[in-house]
């Protein structure tokens, strides 16, 4: 197991360097200029421009800039935002719990609904339930997030008044964050109604963010189950007279779980990407909105370091999934 883990870790190191290089290059390939973007419409005098470019070192060769950047990152210094002048890591730490909370709840929704829906669709293959589930899953998968979010807000918040429009908690609740996770902080705060308010603010953004992963998980579960249900050992189990629930739950589902777990792991990337739009619509103060703002402002430091931190997290999650995978199926370790 240790060897397996080391092997996986060894693969991560070059990937991290590759991503850092890609993030560094990506922001510089974008048209636009951080100094001019910061100066706004009023512009900046050519002398001051030259002074600032020199000051930030953007006039030096890219190789020198990259090596200096990576050198600082290796010492844990991710730099200072050009726009807000705050440390990137500090901003990330302040905003990430909001994204993590949203993504976690979205993933829980996607798994809790997606897996049972996929199983039922497979077991009742060809039935109206199967067709309806897969139809809805396809629709969900193809749904433009921005439009979908706005539609839900207009209907549930505007028309029915069931859920708040945006934000993380009602503005009447004011307490300093302890963990950054609003559900936990609202409980700790001891304010009556705070948890309920935080939970109600999570519903719509979590549903919107869960939509695509839910569709993917349901479809993947269905196809994995269909494959397994056709296997000899399932037929044998059935022939032995085992209860259908036991056959599906124990023999079939457990074996179908491997590709499903992989899919769930891969959804972490999808959730991060989806968070960008979801957070923008719901004014959710997370890292998705933060990255969008940074790209718009050509904040080189935030974009390159932010992308790197996000990539590190996604890779860490995938590593955990790989380990989990090896736990579920010991054969993988040997391979």
């Amino acid at each position: 197991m240790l060897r397996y883990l080391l092997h996986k870790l060894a693969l991560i190191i070059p990937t991290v360097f590759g991503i850092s290089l890609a993030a560094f290059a990506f922001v510089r390939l974008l048209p636009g200029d951080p100094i001019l973007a910061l100066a706004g419409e009023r512009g900046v005098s050519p002398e001051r421009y030259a002074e600032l470019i020199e000051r930030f070192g953007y006039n030096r060769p890219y190789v020198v800039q990259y090596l200096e950047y990576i050198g600082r990152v290796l010492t844990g210094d991710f730099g200072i935002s050009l726009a807000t002048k705050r440390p990137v890591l500090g901003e990330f730490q302040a905003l990430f719990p909001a994204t993590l909370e949203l993504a976690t709840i979205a993933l829980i929704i996607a798994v809790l609904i997606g897996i049972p829906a996929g199983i039922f669709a497979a077991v009742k293959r060809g039935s109206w339930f199967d067709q309806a589930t897969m139809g809805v899953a396809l629709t969900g998968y193809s749904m433009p997030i921005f439009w979908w979010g706005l539609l839900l807000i207009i209907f549930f918040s505007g028309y029915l008044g069931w859920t708040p429009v945006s934000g993380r908690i009602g503005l009447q609740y004011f307490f300093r964050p302890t963990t950054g996770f609003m559900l936990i902080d609202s409980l700790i705060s001891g304010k009556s109604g705070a948890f309920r308010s935080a939970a109600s603010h999570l519903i719509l953004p979590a549903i919107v963010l869960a939509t695509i992963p839910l569709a993917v998980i349901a479809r993947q579960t269905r196809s994995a189950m269909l494959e397994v249900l056709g296997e000899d050992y399932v037929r044998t189990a059935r022939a032995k007279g085992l209860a259908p629930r036991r056959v599906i739950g124990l023999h079939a589902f457990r074996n179908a779980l491997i590709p499903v777990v992989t899919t769930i792991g891969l959804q972490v990337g999808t959730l991060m990407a989806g968070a960008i739009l979801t957070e923008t619509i719901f004014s959710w103060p997370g890292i998705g909105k933060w990255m969008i703002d940074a790209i718009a402002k050509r904040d080189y430091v935030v974009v390159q370091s932010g992308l790197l931190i996000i990539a590190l997290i996604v890779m860490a999650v995938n590593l955990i999934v790989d380990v989990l995978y090896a736990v579920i199926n010991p054969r993988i370790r040997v391979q």
Partner: protein
Amino acid sequence: MKKKLTFAAALLAASVLGGMANAKQLVYCSEASPAGFDPSPWSGGNDFDASSRTIYSRLVEFEHGKTTIKPGLAESWTVSDDGLEYTFKLRPGVKFQTTDYFTPTRDLNADDVIFSFERQWKKENPWFDYLAGTGWEYFAGMGFPDLLKEIVKVDDLTVKFVLNKPEVAFLPDLGMDFASIVSKEYADQLDKAGTRQQFTQKPIGTGPFQFVDYQVDAVIRYAAWDGYYGGRQKIDDLIFAITTDPAVRAQKLKAGECDIMSYPAPADIAGLQADPNLKVDEQEGLNIGYMAYNTTQAPFDKVEVRKALNMAVNKQAILDAVYQGAGQAAINPIPPTMWSYNKDIKDDPYDPDAAKKMLADAGVTDLSMKIWAMPVSRPYNPNAKRVAELIQADYAKIGVKAEIVSYEWTEYRERGKQKDRDGAFQLGWTGDNGDPDNFLFLLGCDAIGQSNYAIWCNQEFEALLQKGKATTDVAERTKIYEEAQVVFKREAPWLTIAHSKVFMPMNKKVSGFVMDPLGIHRFDGVDVTE
């Protein structure tokens, strides 16, 4: 120590919360997060709303809803005959805010005023570079580094600004956000503690509201400052709920999650007006959307060609399609709400046939040109690409082929400044201080390569511009600027497109909110009826 701080924070939170039960609260759905709370380093309207207009005050202030100035932290001033010395008498007893992170030991004095400007001006000032790479763009953009000769402390409550040259707009300039007065005592305290960064994160000013808390990208909380020299505000708590999407802001306003919102999308305005709980205030914006010809390139160096192209454009169609009723056709380079606006000038009539003939008379046939379209939406031009398409279609009617080009926003402006730029360039301007010079300078000879995208240097216009700058008498300046507008219209360096309207939807329980012609959102004097 840490325990003590936590206790203090808890105490503050408890006091804010404790007061909340009966507190009058105003929630403003704002459009973007502020970069920081120091009023001087940044240049965005949302930065100013969150810092200078809430937390700080200035030597002079714009009257609510107007562009005229009135005494602020300076209760009076005198100007020397040569216009080079401005001596301000400071209001005695002005208190800086007392918070859980700063307790002032003295009132506002001349040291604070000098510090507020010198930190933006003198590179040797230790605060010049306290935020890495701050350009102090507004201070520089308004020409202050060249304008100021020295700032002298006459006594504790008297401060003298000595200028290198007369500047008629100097007083309105001091009413601008970048000229907000900060606390030197607070800066010294942070210097000693080695926590300069806190200056922009935990602000201290003399304005109507004091800072309470900022949750990044989410909520800013302020409380009324009891010691405000202008009197305590009627609302106790002011909250900015940062909501970037205009459609979501509109939904929040309808749902009662906020009381007032900025910048509604044109498509949402009718729905907001129809809501029985809401009212929508509107005002002519102090702005202009225009298209600048490159007057140094043939055939746009000929006045007749520029005039003909202006006459080919159906402005009403643009107003209907792009501004959706929230704008009016622009005739002059300054908006009609500004003093010295010349009402006698008539716009070039929309007349494609005459335009075609004028082009032929000027010897221009088979003209192909570029129309530049901004990639972003701005209050003075919500959709430059659509405007470009409409102009392209109008030009086609007179036989002019136009190609639409656009670039990333900063690159767009940089390319537009190039002297050999090909074609007509869309842009606009929103006023800073309500002075006509703040619009007309865009077309000055000095502004070529910077804000003069027409690359137009007309000696007659330039002479009037300089004369206006050197005259203090308003009636005389009015005449000068009226004449300058006549020259502008005759020479047609721009197609003046539109002045847009600005809308401010709010709950009917909000009273006392006055729309600001400079586009600022200020909440002093606002009340909420429960």
